[in-house]
């Protein structure tokens, strides 16, 4: 089996993509209820406001950021002849995603711990 950067990026992209689709469904379920009156909305919102969901939120952030930068990387590969730099490009996308996840995740964590 090939565990190359290409494969890892592919796998992570898939996982994050599918995770995002699931989140999207959830998100629509919550926000969509806004027109069904405050009770429904608040009930649904509360269901996704538990601390465990805050952790999920970090994962969500990681997924979005990784998926987005991997997507940018792919678009670059499509439109410029840069296959020679394939490893560096992956590391770069991954690093940026990691930094942004930490930058966004730490405040979420602190927010969660505070209240």
């Amino acid at each position: 089996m090939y565990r190359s950067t290409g494969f890892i990026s592919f796998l992570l992209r898939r996982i994050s993509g599918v995770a995002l689709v699931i989140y999207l469904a959830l998100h629509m379920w919550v926000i969509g209820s806004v027109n069904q009156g405050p009770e429904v909305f608040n009930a649904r919102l509360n269901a996704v406001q538990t601390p465990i969901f805050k952790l999920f939120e970090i994962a969500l952030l990681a997924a979005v950021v990784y998926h987005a930068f991997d997507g940018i990387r792919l678009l670059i590969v499509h439109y410029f002849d840069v296959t020679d730099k394939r490893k560096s490009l992956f590391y770069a996308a991954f690093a940026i995603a990691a930094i942004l996840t930490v930058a966004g995740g730490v405040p979420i964590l602190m927010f969660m711990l505070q209240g």
Partner: protein
Amino acid sequence: MFDFIFKRETPEAIKKGNKAIVRIQRFNPEVDEKPYMEEFEVPMTPDTTVLDALHHIKTEQDGSVTFRRSCRHAICGSCAMNINGSNDLACHRPLSESLDYHGKITIKPLPFQPIIKDLVVDRTTFWAQYMKIKPWLIPPDDIPEKEFRMSPEEVEALHNAETCIMCGACYSSCQVVGLNKEYIGPHALLKSFLRTADPRDSIPGERLEIVDGDNGVYRCHTIFNCIDACPKNLNPTEAIETLRKLAQKRLAYEEAREERQKTLNEPIREA
């Protein structure tokens, strides 16, 4: 990968570098239920190749070890196999540079294809995809007495694809192939690129139509393993990217080709 952590005592001969241990995945569907690993010890000099080692095993130790080979200098494409987890040609790979800390090398058949026996795999789907893209050139009707004129640059542009030896290292490294054998695959897409990009070919439109489908260029997820695997240092990914772009402007490309073919019989003007 984590050998430096689990490093154990290495046998003397292997430390001195004149012996190596070859681990081969064995499987004979006539008798075995599932594949298993077997170890052989072989003598080694600095210029022993992996293929030499396999030959030594086959001729001196166990004649039933089965693999394909012919040219032994990386041009016929027979001997592609999975060596230490990546696909390569056994014949051009020095044994001494393929050993881990225990003096071992691990050899398995090419992944994602049914095993016929030991290191020999059934390449039916590989060749079927090759046939699907019509690998042959179809020249224009107007054939000159002498050669078609092509500039050295036009020829150079084809070199990435022309030296493909159809070894299948790329095909068997691509996880998309692992998932879906209907995918045309890097080898055949590279070949398709070769024909499509050749100014002498008169059916670029039809070729682009063949690859411009769900199982063609769009099934490639840019995993790049095909580049890493290719023993001839070719770049199927770039060919696939080019085909994708050409497929989107097929009509314009066909027109350009017709235009180019009008001057195929004339000398290339020099700068």
